[in-house]
């Protein structure tokens, strides 16, 4: 019973924590630490919420979540006979776990498919530019610069972006994209995008995804500024923002400009670094979260 209660409390804490964290202000000062904390919150929320139901469900076996599930799967008879409440918890817990796993897998497969199609088309219609070795160029007047992540990541810019930006600005944009490639930010985004698709009505999940999207951009900006002029990166951002030749996607209007300005501001006037204690605190919290839930799955309290 204790394990189930602790897991339930942990799931609630993660939910509440995420809700508070969506409005935290320090995140832009340490985007990487914030991303780590978001990942930890996500993983432990998933494991704790499903684990709480399952811990309660396998109580009749009296041997913890994981071992209890194994016993259940192998058809061993429990110490105490099943009752309705435990059966309901078992069905609910297994369903939730299956949905979570299925959603993640589906999102992964869909993403890989979309990338494959994108890559194939790029091979047919993009061209090289002698000025930008290794970068694919798309003939389109709108400004776009992006990366198709994968084992062999490809950086793509549109003709519109080429004519919009100066040489230094383009170098800054490419440094930013190279940072996405290097730090595999696509893998960071994937579970949050998947979770959002699974729980489209949840404001916390929506906000979390938006936060993580912004944080990886800031992390990429931070890495890029080591290799290029932050000022050029800022002007490139503003030029992209104002180029808006295409209408903005649904519901992105206000957020888009606000996020862009936030990125520009921190490029031009970097805020003082987060105090060591706070940073280590966040890392310690992440590690605790990520280790405690698997622990509670394996050992019974």
């Amino acid at each position, binding site marked *: 019973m204790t394990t189930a209660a602790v897991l339930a409390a942990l799931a609630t804490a993660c939910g509440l924590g995420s809700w508070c964290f969506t409005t935290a202000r320090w995140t832009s000062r340490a985007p990487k630490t914030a991303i780590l904390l978001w990942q930890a919150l996500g993983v432990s929320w998933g494991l704790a919420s499903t684990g709480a139901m399952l811990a309660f469900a396998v109580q009749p076996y009296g041997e913890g979540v994981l071992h209890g599930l194994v016993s259940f799967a192998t058809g061993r008879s429990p110490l105490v006979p099943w009752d309705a409440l435990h059966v309901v918890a078992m069905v609910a817990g297994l369903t939730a776990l299956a949905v979570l796993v299925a959603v993640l897998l589906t*999102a992964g497969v869909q*993403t890989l498919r*979309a*990338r494959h199609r*994108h890559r*194939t*088309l*790029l*091979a*047919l*219609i*993009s061209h090289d530019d002698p000025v930008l070795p290794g970068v694919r160029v*798309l*003939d*389109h007047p*709108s*400004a*776009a*610069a*992006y*990366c*198709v*992540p994968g084992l062999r990541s490809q950086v*793509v810019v*549109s003709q519109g972006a080429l004519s919009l930006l100066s040489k230094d600005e383009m170098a800054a944009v490419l440094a*930013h*994209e190279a940072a996405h490639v290097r730090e595999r930010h*696509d893998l960071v*985004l*994937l579970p*949050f*995008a998947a979770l*959002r698709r699974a729980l489209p009505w949840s404001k916390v999940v929506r906000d979390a995804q938006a936060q993580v999207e912004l944080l*990886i*951009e800031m992390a*990429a900006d931070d890495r890029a500024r080591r290799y290029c002029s932050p000022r050029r990166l*800022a*002007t*490139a*951002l*503003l*030029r*992209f*923002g*104002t180029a*808006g*030749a*295409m209408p*903005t*996607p*649904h519901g*992105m*209007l*206000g957020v*888009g*400009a606000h996020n*862009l*300005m936030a*990125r520009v501001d921190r490029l*031009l006037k970097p805020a003082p670094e987060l105090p060591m204690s706070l940073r280590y605190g966040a890392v310690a919290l992440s590690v605790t979260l990520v280790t405690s839930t698997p622990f509670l799955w394996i050992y019974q309290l």
Partner: protein
Amino acid sequence: MKGLGELERSIMDILWAQSTALTAREVGRLIADRDLAPTTVMTVLDRLTRKGFLHRTRDGRAWRYAPAATRDAYVAELMLEALDMTGDRSAALTRFAQGVSGPEAEILRRALTELEDE
């Protein structure tokens, strides 16, 4: 000998430039690399058809090949994804920044002017 990808690309370019559907032999005649074996052209045409980029129709004993969509349509498809306008907000691509419209663009424009003046 060019790679298969390169060949697919030149064949698509040839077919996009034509207004009518072509047979494998006609494509072979238009291709820059004259030493290419006819079977290679056939293989690549077949591959592109299977991938859905070409449509083929029977013409007597031969097949005639035409692009399934215009080049511009494919460019537009890529750009929609690049600008995150497909509406599914997937994590397939990572983008540099997105355009903003209306009064908000004005704020950014002013910030840009200030930066350039300094």
